[in-house]
């Protein structure tokens, strides 16, 4: 028993860590209707500032005051005022995208501002971390230190305070009322903006408190640690139906204990210990999404005043005048020809690699165009699906000597199969529920599959350098990886996938998906099999992601888990929604734009953050998703096109743009089936 308790007791403070995060998530969701993916980033920010101030010799109380009492609520108020307040209650996709953008952007912004700071264990907030204050039951094997005491006390106090706030105070009542429709509750004389702002301040204070409280345990202070903590907290919050804080806290503590006890009782190095234990939170989250009924209707909240929201504006391609359209299309074709000729003739090797990588990314991003732009399903596992394709190709190459083509095809099929499995698990989920299920899958593959020795026979990276004695089914290395042949292959694949996506979009499937995106009730009422449509679009998206992943791996000449982890899945979403998720043009611009920007920042001084600066730029772009669901780049294109048209056709009346007369009129003249641009 003592042996068991020796492992179980340390799990309780860990569980309290998860519980505090879960309580914060539930508070934000209950009070504002936002599932705050940025909670981890907020916690990290406070921990980072706290650690930085302590590092520079400021007293703990002052660091706490600045990082938790002032900075954390200010951050939350900023989120509310500048972002979430402007998102309609019913637009769950925009809320998720905004949260993810903050999750990706804030840690990167800190790196850009402060550089790569190594913050080792900052001082404990409440009690001395290294002091054993007492032994549980008087047993010497059960020491309780300052961290344990502080974590448990804070969690209990916060839990009681939040339950009382939400259930037994008039402010709590107003907070719950504001969730459904802050516009509606204002009609009852409640200052809903102030109520929601208060909610954000409180929940952000909790995020800051949790971040600082656990900074010592999670040292060094890194955003990845807080993200993993967030996933476990989400699992606990899900079992509390994103409503019950006590249930979520209980599940969180149980999870903490299981994670602590399981490794001790399972065979070291065995399958369960190596594969299952790291993904327990993801399995728990998936089970919650499958079996907790309340989670299926997370997006059922209907704002009675939703109809006053304006319609989504048309894409740039749909809103420009026919003459302008011809000019721009001709320009694009000319640019394409120049690009191809340049790549095959004078392009420096460095930039040839940049563009080849961009083409591979473009293929991966087209999978997001399919699933999110056309299917209306927000997947946070697209890098994972790309990874399935890449690792399958790599393993077939490594073990059996498959060439790129056959390996790539098998990889695409397997990625498609994984996507279908994910679709089947998510059939009853929508919006936020689906995003959480795909997030669980991404972390599952990240933690439990890609880094296993069976998948990584060569430590670190699976090499794709050609074998000297190729086996089946033919010569390995049908094209050279760096150089013109890789470009030709990437270009051919991209063109084929682009044409396929365009054909699907303008065909019956595209219209069925458009119907499903617009109204699932209406679509089913017409005889459209929504489950089949969802499975099909997942399958297609998985296959395209797998193909893109394979191309990317061949560009890299190796496959490593780092390229296909959950962070990349989140970044992919952020990048594509910035350039335009509903058009193939947006996906290609995202792919090329990402790699070109990565290359350009290498010419800037290192203190500006390098890749972090790129993530910040795209995250800021994605933050405008609520205002410009067509993509901020797409929005700018439309605006520029209109200005150019006015300049070109001013006074002549020729080629007058339908965009001049507003989005409705613009869309009214869009060609049948082509109203969403190219």
């Amino acid at each position, binding site marked *: 028993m003592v042996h068991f308790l020796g492992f179980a007791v340390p799990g309780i403070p860990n569980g309290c860590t998860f519980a505090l995060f879960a309580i914060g998530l539930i508070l934000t969701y209950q009070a504002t209707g936002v599932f705050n993916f940025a909670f981890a980033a907020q916690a990290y920010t406070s921990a980072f500032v706290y650690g930085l101030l302590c590092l520079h010799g400021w007293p703990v109380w002052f660091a706490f005051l600045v990082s938790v009492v002032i900075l954390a609520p200010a951050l939350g108020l900023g989120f509310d005022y500048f972002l979430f307040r402007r998102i309609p209650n019913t637009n769950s996709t925009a809320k998720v995208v905004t949260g993810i953008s903050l999750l990706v952007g804030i840690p990167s912004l800190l790196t850009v501002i402060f550089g790569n700071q190594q913050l080792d264990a900052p001082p404990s907030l409440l009690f001395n971390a290294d002091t054993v204050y007492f032994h549980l039951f008087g047993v010497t094997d059960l020491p309780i230190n300052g961290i344990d005491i502080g974590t448990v006390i804070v969690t209990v106090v916060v839990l009681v305070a939040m339950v009382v706030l939400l259930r037994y105070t008039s402010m709590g009542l107003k907070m719950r009322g504001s969730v459904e429709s802050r516009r509606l509750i204002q009609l009852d004389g409640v200052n809903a903006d102030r109520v929601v702002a208060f909610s954000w301040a409180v929940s952000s204070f909790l995020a800051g408190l949790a971040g600082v409280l656990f900074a010592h345990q999670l040292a060094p202070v890194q955003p990845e640690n807080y993200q993993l903590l967030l996933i476990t907290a989400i699992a606990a919050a899900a079992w509390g139906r994103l409503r019950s804080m006590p249930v979520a806290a209980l599940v969180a503590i149980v999870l903490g204990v299981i994670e602590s006890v399981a490794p001790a009782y399972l065979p070291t190095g065995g399958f369960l210990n190596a594969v299952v234990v790291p993904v327990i939170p993801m399995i728990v989250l998936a089970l919650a999404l499958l079996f907790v009924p309340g989670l299926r209707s997370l997006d059922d909240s209907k704002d009675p005043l939703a109809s006053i929201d304006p319609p989504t504006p048309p894409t740039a391609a749909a809103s420009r005048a026919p003459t302008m359209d011809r000019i721009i299309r001709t320009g694009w074709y000319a640019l394409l020809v120049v690009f191809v000729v340049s790549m095959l003739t004078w392009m420096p090797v460095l930039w040839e690699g940049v563009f080849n990588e961009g083409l591979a990314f473009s293929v991966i991003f087209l999978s997001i165009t399919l699933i999110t732009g056309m299917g209306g399903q927000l997947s946070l596992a697209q890098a994972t699906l790309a990874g399935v394709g890449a690792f399958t190709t790599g393993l077939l190459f490594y073990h059996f000597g498959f060439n790129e083509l056959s390996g790539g095809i098998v990889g695409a099929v397997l990625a498609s199969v994984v996507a279908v499995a994910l679709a089947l698990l998510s059939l009853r989920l929508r919006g936020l529920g689906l995003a959480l299920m795909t997030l669980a899958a991404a972390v599952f593959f990240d933690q439990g599959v890609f880094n296993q020795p069976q998948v990584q026979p060569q430590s670190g990276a699976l090499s794709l350098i050609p074998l000297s004695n190729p086996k089946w089914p033919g010569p390995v290395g049908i094209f050279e990886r760096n150089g013109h042949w890789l470009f030709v292959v990437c270009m051919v694949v991209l063109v084929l996938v682009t044409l396929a996506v365009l054909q699907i979009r303008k065909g019956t499937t595209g219209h*069925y998906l458009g119907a499903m995106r617009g109204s699932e009730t209406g679509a089913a009422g017409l005889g459209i099999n929504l489950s089949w449509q969802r499975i099909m679009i997942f399958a297609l998206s998985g296959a395209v992601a797998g193909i893109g992943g394979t191309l990317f791996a061949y560009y890299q000449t190796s496959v490593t888990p780092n390229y296909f982890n959950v962070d990349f899945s989140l970044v992919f979403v952020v990048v594509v929604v910035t350039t335009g998720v509903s058009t193939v043009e947006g996906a290609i611009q995202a792919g090329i734009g990402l790699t070109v920007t990565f290359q350009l920042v290498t010419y800037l001084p290192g203190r500006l953050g390098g890749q972090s600066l790129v993530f910040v730029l795209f995250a800021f772009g994605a933050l405008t998703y609520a205002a410009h669901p067509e993509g901020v780049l797409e929005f700018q294109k439309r605006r520029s096109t209109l200005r150019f048209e006015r300049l070109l056709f001013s006074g002549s009346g020729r080629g007058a743009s339908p965009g001049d007369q507003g989005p409705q009129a613009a*869309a009214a003249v869009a060609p049948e089936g082509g109203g969403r641009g190219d």
Partner: protein
Amino acid sequence: MTDGGTGGHVTLGGGPWAQRHGGGGPALLGDPGPLLSVRAVSKAFGGITAVSQVTLIVDGGESVGLVGPNGAGKTTLFNCICGQLKPDGGTVEFDGNELGSMPTYKRARLGIGRTYQRIEVFPDMSVREHLLVAERARRGDGRLWKDLVNLSSPTPDELARVNEVLELVGLADKASTPVSALGLGLCRLVELGRALVAQPKLLMADEPSSGLDVHETHELANVLRTLQRERGMAVLLVEHDLGMVGEVVDRAIVMDLGQVIAEGTFDEVMAHPEVRHAYLGTSG
């Protein structure tokens, strides 16, 4: 009207639609019979019983009004019939098929058309695209390979059918307009057209006149009457505009608090004391 192939004005009752519709099924004039049979259907949400032991029959080619005050359970019953809600008890049969746990899309393909109390249109689509989608979905058509090899463009026959319905519901001049640019009343007509293009045997219209002015409501009543009397389409109409109900229906069923309280001709049920009590709070 440009009908893309049939030419000339639509001739109600004698056009290609009616000829196709005459190909079979019980929903025809002269072939009356129980098209829809709802028996003892109940549905509760938590402690609130929205529909309690409701039984009703709609014969082929018949027009039935389902009326009652707000909260009577009419839309819940509609949702149980269409499969969007699973009843707690009772059975629903349509055209000889026990619907049981059949999903909504299969019920639609059996010939149940539906319009909604809360508008359910597809904001990214034009009016014509709505009808084209409905035309394809009715047949369960939509093979991916056809899209990939560019074989899924609308056929002249499909366009003709769509144009015919657009003309019928008065939306021909708005065919290329995106529904996001239309007002509530026109969106209701889009929903109606979308349901009609699928050639349903039973049209279930949930408050179709909501958002329409007096003239538009009268036109809508004419359309529904024409569909029922000249084309043999059964209509189950939920409507608060009792004047329109009186114009359209052969028979009326009144619900209150989840139960059927009266059934008969429109004039009969309106004179029924329980109905007057339900609507006016008085038995007088």
